[in-house]
């Protein structure tokens, strides 16, 4: 009940813009709103909610979570970009909406200038997988075959422009191979099509792990920079001779021009919260790898990814750069 009353207060205060910038020393003095630009119960939503729960006692103020998935999340990003930079309106920022979406379609915000990164806490672990009875034992074999037989290898992904798709497209390009991407709108349907022998391979996230456990699927590689402790047998693409990696990171950000002390306070609180046992459990369960960065680190990743994804998507002639 208190939760609801405070939420109303937050919304009212936010809407009326009556709040004067709080002194940084005693920040926060009222509840904080975290906007999640995705639907409830997705990977981004679940991890952000667990993090928020752990951060509330540290900040000493409740944090209200609002899901605004409209417009593929772009509306939420715009809303936060336009909010007062006082630290009371934050967004669950992601590589998807920060670095990828602006290259795929027109969005009403500028990732590079409209936001203040506060921290990152994790990255979706993305795997390249084939059926366990498949002839391909390694990523190299799959790519070699794809090079010798252009377009014959089918790769199931969630959507075109997801980091899974972009990662595999870059792998194929680096080896001069041609694969056919088949988007399924989600990881689970792609895995089902893999199991049903309708496609050769998939590039998906945690959805595939139960099928790895049951022995039906083999993981060839992870797109992340290093091996994940829980899957010690799955090589990272860096180990396999590629000089890059792809982290579909998750973090917290606010509007541009937030006062430095407020950023510091939030960064410390959320970093501390990311050590919480329950938060770590949630991360493990949905196969989100830890990727902890402070504000400076988050800003660096963000700038890097905005640049690299733009270059990659341009090169692949996708989204806004598609031939008309």
């Amino acid at each position: 009940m208190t939760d609801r009353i405070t939420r109303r207060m937050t919304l009212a205060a936010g809407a009326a813009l009556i709040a004067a910038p709080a002194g940084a020393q005693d920040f926060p003095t009222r509840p904080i709103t975290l906007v999640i630009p995705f639907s409830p119960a997705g990977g981004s939503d679940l991890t952000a909610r667990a993090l928020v729960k752990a951060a509330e006692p540290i900040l000493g103020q409740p944090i209200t979570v609002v899901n605004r998935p409209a417009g593929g999340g772009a509306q939420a990003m715009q809303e936060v970009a336009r909010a007062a930079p006082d630290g009371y309106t934050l967004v669950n920022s992601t590589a998807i909406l920060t670095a990828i979406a602006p290259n795929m379609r027109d969005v009403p915000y500028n990732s590079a200038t409209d936001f203040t990164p506060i921290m990152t806490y994790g990255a979706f672990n993305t795997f390249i997988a084939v059926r366990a009875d498949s002839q391909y034992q390694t990523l190299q074999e799959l790519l070699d075959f794809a090079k010798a037989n252009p377009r014959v290898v089918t790769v199931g992904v969630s959507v075109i422009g997801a980091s899974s798709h972009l990662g595999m497209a870059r792998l194929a390009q680096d080896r001069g191979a041609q694969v056919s991407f088949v988007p399924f709108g989600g990881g689970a349907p792609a895995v089902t099509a893999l199991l049903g022998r309708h496609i050769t391979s998939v590039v998906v996230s945690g959805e595939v792990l139960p099928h790895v456990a049951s022995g039906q699927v083999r993981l060839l590689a992870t797109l992340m920079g290093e091996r994940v402790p829980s899957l010690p047998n799955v090589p990272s693409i860096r180990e396999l001779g590629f000089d890059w990696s792809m982290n579909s990171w998750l973090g917290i950000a606010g509007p541009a021009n937030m006062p430095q002390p407020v950023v510091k306070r939030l960064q410390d609180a959320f970093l501390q919260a990311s050590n919480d046992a329950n938060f770590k459990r949630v991360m493990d369960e949905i196969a989100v790898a830890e990727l902890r960065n402070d504000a400076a680190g988050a800003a660096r990743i963000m700038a890097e990814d905005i640049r690299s994804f733009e270059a990659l998507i341009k090169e692949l002639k996708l989204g806004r750069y598609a031939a008309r």
Partner: protein
Amino acid sequence: MEDGAAPEVALSGRWDAAALGLVLLLTIGALVLSLGYPLWGDFQPGPGLFPTLAAGLAVLCALGALGSALLAERGAATGREEARVWRRLLVYAGIVLIWAASFATLGFAASGAIALTLLMRVGEGMGWLPSLAIAGVTIALGWLLFEVLLGVPLPHGVLPT
């Protein structure tokens, strides 16, 4: 064939054909829009192919419907009755649209109260007092149900709290 569950309100002959003509124009518009996207990609259909086929089918169907409407016997028009119906409809439709448009800016309570009071007063011809009462009770019910019980963060707009 007996015309199953006939709608309570339906246009008579000439107007029916005119409305179908309008629908035909809309489907042609959809077709033109669809043709603006690439029909064929490198090895597979482009984004424009399916919308174009769907819109093309719609154009054909609209032509067929229009044709059969023109051939059909024309029903007797009931002019005066229709004028009254149209007035009520305009009131209702207008209020609903204004309610929706002001939902975010005025907030849930204010926009709803105004719209429902007007609806009862103008649309249904009730007195001011019963209109206000029904609007008030409905809004209170909606607030209790959605905001308090179901936890939907409704926009509060001009009202504090």
